């Protein structure tokens, strides 16, 4: 624990990242308790300026913006975490299989991976979202991860190929241990640092894609989401063109930027926590 704290303290930016990340996690977990119901429209306070009652002011229908940000946080973070997890699992399994199960499977899997890497993943995700529909969180996460595992699979495969030539794998082979045991106990632990850091990066790209889907407005606005707010702020409500309503545009932008900043800055520290070699180099 003290090493972890030391790593965070080495750069102030990492502490900032951690604080931001914890802040948004807090909003996502306790937000529904703070505001169990949807924000209530109040026709007497349309585009109210920030005040004690409405910290970030109100939107075009007089709803509290802060409340919407909090409710959006749960949606965004939960789906992003789940999506990133799916991405990691698919990428790791495909990469391990390609690197470990012989050249025929390797060839087939890598051609498929190449295809997914070439297709513009955002476009495929949008088509899928329209086709399948974003009916619930799990479905949404599955769609978001469907087109984004290619890079990880390729990296894992090349790492497996290099790790399996190392001497400790040879020792295990010589001891007559089973292939599964070698794969899970020798090869996988060596890839773990990379996988965990990639989880953080996958998180940023799922947030990107998920909020983007709502911002484009190609999917039904079922959920509270920062993308929906951004869509209304730039489009229909015209909030962009008046200083009175500008908080409605700035709030979702700030939420997305701060969340991504938090993830990226923490990833920098996580990178060093999970990879002892980086620590030794200091």
């Amino acid at each position, binding site marked *: 624990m003290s090493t972890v704290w030391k790593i965070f303290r080495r750069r102030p930016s990492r502490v900032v990242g951690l604080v931001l990340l914890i802040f948004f996690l807090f909003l996502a977990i306790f937000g529904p308790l703070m505001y169990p119901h949807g924000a209530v429209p109040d026709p007497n306070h349309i585009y109210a300026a920030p005040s004690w009652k409405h910290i970030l002011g109100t939107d075009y229908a007089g709803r509290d913006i802060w409340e919407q940000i909090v409710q959006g946080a749960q949606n965004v973070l939960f789906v992003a975490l789940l999506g990133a997890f799916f991405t990691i699992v698919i990428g790791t399994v495909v990469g391990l299989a390609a690197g470990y199960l012989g050249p025929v499977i390797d060839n087939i899997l890598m051609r498929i991976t190449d*295809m997914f*890497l*070439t297709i*513009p993943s955002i476009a495929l995700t949008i*088509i899928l979202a329209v086709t399948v*529909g974003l009916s619930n969180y799990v479905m949404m996460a599955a769609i978001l991860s469907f087109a984004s595992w290619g890079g990880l699979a390729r990296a894992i495969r090349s790492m497996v190929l290099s790790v399996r030539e190392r001497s400790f794998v040879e020792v295990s082979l010589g001891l007559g241990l089973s292939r599964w045991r070698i794969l899970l106990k020798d090869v996988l632990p060596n890839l773990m640092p990379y996988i965990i850091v990639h989880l953080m990066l996958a998180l940023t790209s799922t947030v990107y894609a998920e909020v983007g889907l709502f911002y*484009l407005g190609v999917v039904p606005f079922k959920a509270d989401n920062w993308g929906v707010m951004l869509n209304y702020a730039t489009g229909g409500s015209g909030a962009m063109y008046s200083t009175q309503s500008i908080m409605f545009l700035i709030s979702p*932008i700030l939420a997305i930027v701060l969340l991504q900043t938090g993830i990226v800055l923490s990833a*920098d520290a996580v990178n060093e926590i999970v990879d002892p070699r980086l620590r030794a180099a200091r």
Partner: protein
Amino acid sequence: MTKLLRRLGISVLMIFLVAALTFFLIRLMPGNPYEVMYHQLLMKGMSQQQAMDQVRSIMNAIPNQPVLIQFVEWLGQLLHGNMGTSIQETGVPVTELVLNALPWTLVTVSLGLVISFFIGILLGVWSASRRNSWVSGLIDNVGSIAHAIPAYVTAVALLYLFNVVWHVFPSSGAYGIMETPGLNIPFLLSFLYHIVLPVGTYVLTGFGSWELAMKSTTITVINDDFMMAARLRGLPREKQMRYLGWNSILPLFTSFMLSLGAMFGGSVFIEGTYAFPGIGNLFATAINSRDYPVIQGCFLLTTTTIIVANVIADFAYSKLDPRIQA
């Protein structure tokens, strides 16, 4: 040479697979669009034969036939360059819509890619050369945060600052309404003026990944034996830098072309925000109005463009780096 042929073969197969994917994905859409359209036409009072012909000319597929036969028919039409006609803009061939939009996107995306590549490389070398100072950490953080912030957020922020607040750059379109597209100076100037914000967005969201990649390859190359030898031989600094730069940039070329896919993906958001008449905007509007033939056309053409670009890149890469044989 055989390897090149194999690569070409794989690319053709890939384009075929993507075509199949787009066809079957559209068939999976809720309320099979082919049938829906057929029945709508019947309701309008057309005869069965008329409705069938109409659907066939728009969608390039015959409803009421087995899916495989539909696919073969669609593919045959595709090979003749016929992708059906748009539903929204009735009667306009998809090929025409897509080919009109593609050049705008190609120019902005490649400009953005090249500029972000150069900025990223310069920053990467700079960051690698002062690896242990706070400057390096700052550059890395700024680069990765700029990369992680979604393109539409950057686009909206730039649009707000430069259009709403300061009235410096136009908010939409690719050229002024007074100009005629073509090779004339006023049009080109107006075009450049209009693409500042879109290209700026590509650059802001793109340079970070180049910076990080360049930094890591530079640090690897700096410790290579031949760099040590160059230092020991007392080669002039510019020569050393040339060795270093060239050998660190080489590995980035493969990702250069691969990143085209991501850039095209970003164009959906960026062009949507700036109402830029490119393929990303066309795709977004087609999705919004469920204009299936146009969706298929956009997706297929973009992917084909990227696959072709990748083949060219592979070929060029084997020429640039003698260690890899074509």
